């Protein structure tokens, strides 16, 4: 194949790549596809996309192609962004190196890393910020990547940036639509709850009062007992309805999401108690736990109440984070602490029961004089 044909072929690949990326709206799929297309367009053996953290310019995710899962596991931790990879992060421009090992800027490879020589990289910019970098190594059929490879990768990186922007905007739109639907559902439930309380419960209560009065006046013992039985049935119906209504409307959560509600709880506690309260919530975890929000609010409320009454703390931190087994809700104070085997520790039985009732586990750590940490671990 001549140079002109190769160029035409590459342009065709780039057009296909643009179409392929434009048609994909799922961010994870877009990221995978970017690496595959970069390998295809540049004839690389290995490819990767290093996604940078939002707050720090370090690699937080490393999506690879061309290397087996087994080899990747043998290498261990993903690169953090030093050496050549770090150079690309810092300089934010395309970079082509004939032999990584011979480059004085390299930090070398970790044990079990496959040998790599030629290198080509380019930043991916989305919404005006560097989202990450595409890394390609081991040019197939040549000793190093060419200028044309670099130019093609730059074009692909631009297409990738647009595709990432699209996918993110689409995800935000989906999230907004789900949130709107959730709010509409809450409003509808609220309306039903009010109608039930204002109408059905009031009527049942009036009937119950009437029957109860009739039973009290009845000279016939048997009729009195039967009427009381009916009153008890009405009582049960009212109780069930109340449980349903108040279950639908979990107080502080009526118009807020879990994360917001926890933050507000922290602010309120801080204002009231004078204890410095820091609330650190992983929003995605909070969203996944929305169905348990009422219980989790109560767990935090009880734990903070204990801190306010018993801990003599100067600060407390409420953290909701993701862990390997699911989610962890932690309330950690720097107060007086106590012996967990003492009656004070037994007093946390309510908290433990509440967490267990929603499928979780409560872990309590406290040492006299060194503060207390309450952790509720929950499956996701």
């Amino acid at each position, binding site marked *: 194949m001549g140079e002109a044909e190769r160029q035409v072929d590459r342009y065709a690949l780039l057009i296909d790549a643009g179409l392929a990326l434009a048609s994909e709206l799922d961010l994870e799929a877009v990221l995978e596809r970017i690496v595959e297309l970069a390998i295809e367009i540049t004839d690389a053996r290995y490819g990767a996309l290093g996604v940078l953290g939002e707050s720090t310019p370090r690699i937080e995710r490393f999506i690879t192609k061309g290397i087996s899962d087994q080899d990747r596991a043998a290498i261990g931790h993903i690169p953090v962004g030093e050496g050549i990879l770090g150079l690309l992060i810092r300089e934010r421009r395309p970079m082509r190196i004939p032999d990584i090992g011979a480059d004085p800027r390299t930090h070398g490879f970790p044990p079990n890393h496959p040998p790599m020589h030629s290198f080509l990289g380019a930043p991916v910019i989305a919404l005006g910020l560097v989202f990450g970098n595409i890394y390609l190594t081991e040019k197939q059929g040549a000793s190093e990547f060419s200028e044309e490879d670099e130019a093609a990768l730059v074009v692909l990186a631009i297409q990738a940036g647009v595709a990432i922007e699209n996918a993110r905007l689409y995800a935000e739109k989906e999230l907004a639509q789900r949130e709107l639907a959730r709010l509409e559902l809450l409003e509808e439930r609220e309306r039903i709850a009010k109608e039930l*309380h204002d109408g059905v419960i009031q009527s049942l209560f009036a009937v119950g009062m009437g029957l109860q009065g009739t039973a009290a006046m009845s000279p016939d013992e048997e009729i009195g007992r039967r009427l009381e039985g009916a009153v008890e049935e009405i*009582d049960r119906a009212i109780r069930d309805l109340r449980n349903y209504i108040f279950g639908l409307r979990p107080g502080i959560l009526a118009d807020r999401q879990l994360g917001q509600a926890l933050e507000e709880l922290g602010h309120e506690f801080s204002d009231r108690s004078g204890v410095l309260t820091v609330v650190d919530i992983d929003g995605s975890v909070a969203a996944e736990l929305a169905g348990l929000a009422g219980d989790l609010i109560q767990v935090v*409320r009880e734990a903070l109440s204990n801190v306010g009454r018993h801990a003599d703390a100067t600060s407390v931190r409420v953290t909701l984070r993701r862990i390997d087994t699911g989610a962890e809700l932690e309330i950690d104070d720097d107060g007086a602490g106590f012996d967990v085997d003492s009656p004070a520790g037994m007093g946390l039985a309510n908290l433990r029961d509440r967490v267990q009732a929603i499928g979780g586990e409560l872990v309590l750590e406290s040492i006299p004089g060194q503060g207390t940490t309450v952790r509720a671990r929950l499956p996701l």
Partner: protein
Amino acid sequence: MFARYFIELPMSPEQVTAALARHPEEWVPGLAEQANHVGDTLLADVGFGEHLRIARTVALELGEPIAMATKTLIPLRWEATGPRGVFPSMEADLEIAPLSADRTQLAMSARYVPPMGAVGRAMNRTMLFRVAEATLKDFLDGVGRALMSPTAGASAGTAI
């Protein structure tokens, strides 16, 4: 079993709602221990009789106020912390309903379970319902007095 009692207050519904939204120590009668937040359990003495008062310490739980179409209500319930004697556990709604721009009906619609099982149910017809009603009346009258006190009026931003 059911019990209901109400009082009328020469206050606007907004004033009553605002006053009841404040800290329970400002309006719950017989409060024995402060709570840190609505939803916490309080300890309060409930009972009846002025000169020879019969009372029990109960664990009192208050819910968040809920605005309904025609009224605002505050769910609450109490249960004796020690021996119950003749005192029933009570689950009630404290209801704030407007009568006019400056008059409000404060009512309690309560449901209770007579103590002492079947014996209690039999006694309810002759005696225990009076205990329940008297306890309810005593509690709500106490709430009314607290709301009408100068301190509560001031904290609700009004001069009664």
